[in-house]
C-alpha cells in the first residue's frame, strides 16, 4: 500500500503509483483506484453534478476537487462584463453554482489564478508526484510530468469520482519511451512529443501507460516535460509519466497547496522512491536518438501526420491500408498538393497558447524569436497565456510588449482557439501555425486548417508568412 514501494518484484513507476492507490482488487483484476485530485471544468461536468443531485449524492471529497472554467471563457478584456454567448454563459454559471454549492476549491473566471485547468493544477501545487489525478479532459495527461498518474475521463466517470473519490480501473500495460542524448538547437519538447506520435501513430499507445525517460527528457524543464506528457493522449496512451527528480521537487516547493515543513520532508522522501526499478518489465520499448529529432510540423488532420520541416507534403500512395483514404481526405481538407515543400506552405494565422504550450517558458521562447520582428503582411496572430498568473509573469518580464510590437494580440487566459469553443476561431479555409495539440478537421473552427508545431516554429512562421525552419532564423542571429 501507499508509502511502501520496496516489496517484491521490480516494478515500473506506473506499477508503484497504481499499487499505492488500490482500494479494492477483484479476482479478474478490476480495481477500485483512489483519486487524489479531481480537476473539473465547465464543459464535461454539468451532467455529472446533475446526476449526483438526481441520486441525492454528495461530493465525497470536495477538498480534493478543484474547479476552474477554461473552455468557454472569452479571452478578451471585456469578459469582466460576462460571457456574451448564452450557452457558454450558462455552462460557466453552472460550474459556479456547483462549485459553491458543493464547496469545491474554485477559481472563478475573473480570478487572477484562473486559467487552463492543466496549467492551474501544477501552478497552485495541487498536482504533486505520486498522485492520481483525473479530469473530464483528455489532456489531463499533462500532470504526468510530475510523476503523477493522470488521465482524462468521461462525464459518467466524473460523476463516479465526485460520488466516491475512486475510479474503476484495470491495469494498463507498460511502455518505455526513451529519448537518448541531447537535442539539437531549435528542437524543443514539442518536437519530441510530436516525433514520438509520428513514430508510434495515434493508436500506438492504446492500452499502455508511457514512461518517458532518457537524457533528453531529464534535461527538459518541468514546463517542457508537461508539453511532452500533455500529448501522450494523442498517441493513444492512457497516461504519460516522467519520474520525479530534483527539478520536480524544486518546482513544487513553496506552491500554495504543496506540503510545508515536516510534511514536505516526508513527501519528498516518498517521492524519491518513485522511479522504475532496475529489471522491471516493459511490454513495449521505443527509443529515439535526441540528435535525430528535427523541428517538426504536422501536414494533415491527425497528430500522427508529422514530418520534419525540411520534408515535402506526402502523397496518399505513400501510405498503406486505411491510411491511404485518410491521407487523401486530409490533403483535400488541408488544401495541400503532394510534393510541395512544407516550408512553402503559406499561413493566415498564428496561435500560441493551450495546455500544451501556454506556460511562461513557451512565451519566453516565442518572444525570443519575435523580439524586434513583425508578423508578415496579412498574417494575424494571437497569444493566449495559460493562466492569469502566466500572463502577469509575462507582463513583468515585458514579453507582452514584444508580442504587441510584433503585431500579435495579447489575450486573457483560456483554452481559446485550441478548440474554438469561445469566439476565438479560424474562418473556413484559414490556415494556422498552432502550438496546440490537435489538428482534427474543424477543431479550430469549421473548415479551419491547423499545423501543429512548437512555439518557436509558430513564431518563426508568423514572421515569414509561411511554415519555416526556425533554425535558419537562429543561424541569422548568431
Amino acid at each position: 500500500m501507499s508509502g511502501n514501494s520496496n516489496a517484491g518484484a521490480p516494478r515500473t513507476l506506473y506499477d508503484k503509483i497504481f499499487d499505492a492507490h488500490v482500494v479494492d482488487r477483484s479476482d479478474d483484476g478490476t480495481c477500485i483506484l483512489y483519486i487524489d485530485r479531481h480537476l473539473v471544468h465547465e464543459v464535461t461536468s454539468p451532467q455529472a453534478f446533475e446526476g449526483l443531485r438526481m441520486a441525492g449524492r454528495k461530493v465525497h471529497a470536495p477538498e480534493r476537487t478543484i474547479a476552474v472554467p477554461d473552455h468557454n471563457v472569452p479571452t478578451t478584456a471585456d469578459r469582466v462584463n460576462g460571457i456574451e454567448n448564452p450557452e457558454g454563459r450558462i455552462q460557466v454559471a453552472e460550474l459556479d453554482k456547483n462549485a459553491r454549492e458543493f464547496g469545491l476549491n474554485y477559481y472563478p473566471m475573473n480570478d487572477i489564478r484562473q486559467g487552463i485547468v492543466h496549467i492551474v493544477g501544477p501552478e497552485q501545487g495541487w498536482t504533486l508526484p505520486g498522485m492520481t489525478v483525473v479530469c473530464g479532459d483528455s489532456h489531463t495527461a499533462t500532470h504526468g510530468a510530475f510523476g503523477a498518474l493522470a488521465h482524462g475521463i468521461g462525464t459518467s466517470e466524473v460523476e463516479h469520482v465526485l460520488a466516491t473519490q475512486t475510479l474503476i480501473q484495470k491495469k494498463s500495460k507498460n511502455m518505455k519511451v526513451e529519448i537518448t542524448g541531447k537535442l539539437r538547437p531549435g528542437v524543443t519538447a514539442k518536437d519530441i512529443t510530436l516525433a514520438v506520435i509520428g513514430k508510434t501513430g495515434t493508436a500506438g499507445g492504446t492500452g499502455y501507460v508511457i514512461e518517458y525517460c532518457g537524457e533528453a527528457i531529464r534535461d527538459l524543464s518541468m514546463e517542457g516535460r508537461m508539453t511532452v506528457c500533455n500529448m501522450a493522449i494523442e498517441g493513444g496512451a492512457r497516461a504519460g509519466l516522467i519520474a520525479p527528480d530534483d527539478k520536480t521537487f524544486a518546482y513544487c516547493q513553496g506552491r500554495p497547496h504543496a506540503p510545508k515543513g515536516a510534511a514536505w520532508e516526508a513527501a519528498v522522501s516518498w517521492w524519491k522512491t518513485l522511479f522504475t526499478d532496475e529489471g522491471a518489465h516493459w511490454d513495449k520499448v521505443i527509443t529515439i536518438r535526441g540528435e535525430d529529432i528535427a523541428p517538426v510540423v504536422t501536414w494533415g488532420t491527425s497528430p500522427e501526420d508529422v514530418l520534419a520541416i525540411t520534408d515535402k507534403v506526402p502523397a496518399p500512395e505513400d501510405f498503406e491500408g486505411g491510411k491511404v483514404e485518410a491521407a487523401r481526405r486530409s490533403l483535400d481538407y488541408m488544401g495541400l498538393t503532394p510534393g510541395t515543400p512544407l516550408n512553402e506552405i503559406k499561413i493566415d494565422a498564428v496561435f500560441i497558447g493551450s495546455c500544451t504550450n501556454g506556460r511562461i517558458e513557451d512565451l519566453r521562447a516565442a518572444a525570443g524569436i519575435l523580439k524586434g520582428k513583425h508578423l508578415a503582411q496579412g498574417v494575424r496572430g494571437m497569444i493566449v497565456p495559460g493562466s492569469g498568473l502566466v500572463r502577469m509573469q509575462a507582463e513583468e518580464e515585458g514579453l507582452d510588449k514584444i508580442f504587441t510590437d510584433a503585431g500579435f494580440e495579447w489575450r486573457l487566459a483560456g483554452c481559446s482557439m485550441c478548440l474554438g469553443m469561445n469566439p476565438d476561431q479560424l474562418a473556413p479555409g484559414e490556415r494556422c501555425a498552432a502550438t496546440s495539440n490537435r489538428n482534427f478537421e474543424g477543431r479550430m473552427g469549421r473548415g479551419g486548417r491547423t499545423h501543429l508545431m512548437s512555439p518557436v516554429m509558430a513564431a518563426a512562421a508568423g514572421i515569414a508568412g509561411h511554415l519555416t525552419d526556425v533554425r535558419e532564423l537562429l543561424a541569422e542571429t548568431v
Partner: protein
Amino acid sequence: MDKFTTLTGIAAPMPLVNIDTDMIIPKQFLKTIHRSGLGKNLFDEMRFNSDGSEIADFVLNQPAYRESQIIVAGDNFGCGSSREHAPWALLDFGIRCVISTSFADIFYNNCFKNGILPIVLPQEAVDVLMDDARKGANARITVDLEAQTVTSSDGQSFSFEMDPFRKHCLLNGLDDIGLTMEKATKIDSYESQMAQSRPWV
C-alpha cells in the same frame, strides 16, 4: 442505463481510420448541460453543409442507412477528446454498437457507461462485416453479447473478447457508482490509512 443483450440491425460502413470525437460531435454542440438531444448533430460537419442541408453521399444520409443501429468503422475509432457527448450523440441517433479493429481508450470506456457495446475484431473479420454493411438495409448484422458473437447477414459468425465485469454491467444495465458505493467501508479505511502514510495529499 439501458441493458444490452442482443441486437439485430442495419450497420453503416465507415471505413475511414482515426474517426475522432471532434468529427462525431463537433465542439459547438458541447455547450449543452444535458445528456440528450445530441443525435441531430451526430457527425455534424460530415453530415450537413454549413447552410444545414444534408450532404447526400454521407453514409447516414443515404436512405439505406438512416435507421442504422450499428457502425462498422476503421481503426482507432473515437480518438481525441474525452467528451462523453460522443457516445451520447451516437446513442441519441440510435447507434447501440460500434465494431472496429481498435478504439481509443477514453471513448471505449465511455461507451460502457451508456449502454453502447464497442466490439474489437481482427482486420479480416472487420473487412467481412464492412462488406456486409455496404450491402445496405437488407443486410442486417446480429450481435449477441451473452454469446460474444457478431454474425453477418449471410451467417458468418465471429467471436469477440469482452471484459467479464463490463459484460455483466451491460447485460444488466448496472450503474457502477452504485456498485462502488457498496464498498464504501473499503474507501473509508483506505482514507484513514492514507492520512497516516501520505498525510500531505
